[in-house]
């Protein structure tokens, strides 16, 4: 029993630190998009799901309406509901602890937890809670550092932040493109977004691209 959780904890902590460090990029991008340091930190505390946070501030930065920013962020967050459906029966917690487990249900905590299944139920729970809490602590800490740093540095283009944000999105989508069909979905989405950009108000092309997912996902393949 003893060596088992230790490996799990090591896995969980290394993921927490690596992933949490990207909070720097979020804090900096958020301040560059016109959010205050306080607002940036509240985002990481209460939204706490990276892709949605980047999307919300990204749409605002590109001049899109609030509704488009909120809808894009929420749609990117729907996968967390699917993670919750998988995690709830494995965690078996009630009340406030259940709400806390829901808030910590993100790509990384679910990923580490499910990778512990061969090590047993206890390892799954340890993996989930240590990763979730670890990412939470580091993500929030690094968000604050990034936000303060961006405030001190000034013009985002002169130190490349305006290119770091799309690079983050590219880095987030890249590992998901496991087969040719998924790569086709990504390329079609990019082309679709470029084509509709001149025809729609700023920010709307992003949410409109969900149509590509609906159309290509409709038929069994």
């Amino acid at each position, binding site marked *: 029993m003893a060596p088992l959780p230790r490996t799990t904890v090591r896995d969980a902590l290394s993921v927490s630190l*690596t992933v949490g460090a990207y909070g720097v*990029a979020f804090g900096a991008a958020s301040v560059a998009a*016109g*959010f*205050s340091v306080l*607002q940036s930190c*509240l*985002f990481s505390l*209460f*939204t*706490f*799901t990276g892709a*949605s946070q*980047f*999307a919300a*501030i990204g749409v*605002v930065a*590109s001049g899109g309406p*609030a509704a488009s*920013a*909120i809808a894009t962020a*929420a*749609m*990117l*967050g*729907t*996968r*967390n509901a699917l993670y919750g*459906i998988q995690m*709830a029966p494995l965690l078996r917690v009630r009340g406030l602890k259940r709400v806390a487990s*829901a*808030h910590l*249900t993100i790509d990384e905590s679910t990923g580490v937890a499910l990778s512990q299944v061969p090590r047993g139920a206890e390892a799954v729970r340890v993996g989930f809670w240590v990763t979730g809490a670890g990412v939470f602590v580091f993500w929030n800490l690094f968000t604050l550092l990034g936000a303060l740093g961006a405030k001190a540095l000034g013009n985002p*283009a*002169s*130190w*490349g932040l*305006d*290119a*770091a944000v*799309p*690079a983050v*999105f*590219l*880095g987030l989508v890249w590992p998901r493109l496991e087969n040719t069909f998924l790569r086709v*979905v*990504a*390329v079609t*989405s*990019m082309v679709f977004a470029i084509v509709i*950009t*001149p025809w729609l108000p700023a920010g709307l*092309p*992003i949410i*409109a*691209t*969900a149509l*590509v*997912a609906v159309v290509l*996902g409709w038929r069994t393949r």
Partner: protein
Amino acid sequence: MRWLVLIATSVLCLAIKIFGHYVPQRWLANARLQRINALIPIALLSALVVAEGVVQKTHVVLDHRLAGLAFAVVALLAKAPFPVVVVGAAVTSALVYHLH
């Protein structure tokens, strides 16, 4: 407007997470729904690469950011770790920005 985005995004994203932990498993068992849901992050993240990388307001604009994105593509193809991808893209873009 920024407070509205912050509060509504936080409330919705947390509500979605809580929904997943309380909903009966069979509710989201529909195969088509799961298929579409799996594609949505890919579609939206791809659109965000475009919107942040080559768009300004409602125009496609190719500028220093494209150099940063090109670096990111090469780094990802070379299986570079995430920080290298992001920081390298920023440095490349900043260099091109200052050369102009």
